[in-house]
């Protein structure tokens, strides 16, 4: 159950990041409500996962799914740059962030 909560937390974070794009493109209340719902649900499932799983691992997986998934959705749905240099630098930032959460 904790692992399912953790994956759901990551997916909702991904959804929340995509809603930031939607909010700026459409500038309406529906997008803002969906954004708040996405991040709210993400934190809720994250806290459920943290009751049983170790904190470093939990944070690392949550970040991994949410931030990299959010970047992928930005490219697929919202036309963000697919330039290989950008992808490498995003991978460096997120890979290092995941590593830091695992070693801390």
């Amino acid at each position, binding site marked *: 159950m904790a692992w399912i909560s953790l994956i759901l937390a990551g997916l909702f974070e991904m959804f929340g990041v995509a809603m930031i*794009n939607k909010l700026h493109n459409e500038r309406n209340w529906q997008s803002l409500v969906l954004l708040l719902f996405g991040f709210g649900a993400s934190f809720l499932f994250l806290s459920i996962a943290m009751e049983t799983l170790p904190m470093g691992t939990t944070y690392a997986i949550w970040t991994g799914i949410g931030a990299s998934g959010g970047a992928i959705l930005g490219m697929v749905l919202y036309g*963000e740059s697919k330039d290989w240099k*950008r992808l490498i630098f995003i991978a460096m930032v997120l*890979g290092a962030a995941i590593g830091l959460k695992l070693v*801390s």
Partner: protein
Amino acid sequence: MNKNWINVFIAALFEIFWVIGLKHADTLWTWAGTVISIIISFYIMIMAGRKLPVGTVYAVFVGLGTAGTVISEIIFFGEPIKISKILLIIVLLIGVIGLKLVTTDVRKGVDS
């Protein structure tokens, strides 16, 4: 340096406050500060995504927040310094600088 990037860095700074707050807050005032930091950091980060690519903004926000939290834990809460932490922070910072260099503003038509 462009205003949107400075906002991403300020958002990451507030993220450090609330991550530490979630772990260490134990009074009404520290919890209030934590909640206010969450609101400020997300608001500034979301607004930075108005001009910059959201995937880039969110990665830098999460990355700098994590690096800042690790450094703060070492300085203020006596966590051990490890060579692996220093190396990962260097990789992370190179990635952030690289992203800053390759990123051009999106949604140019939008007034800032």
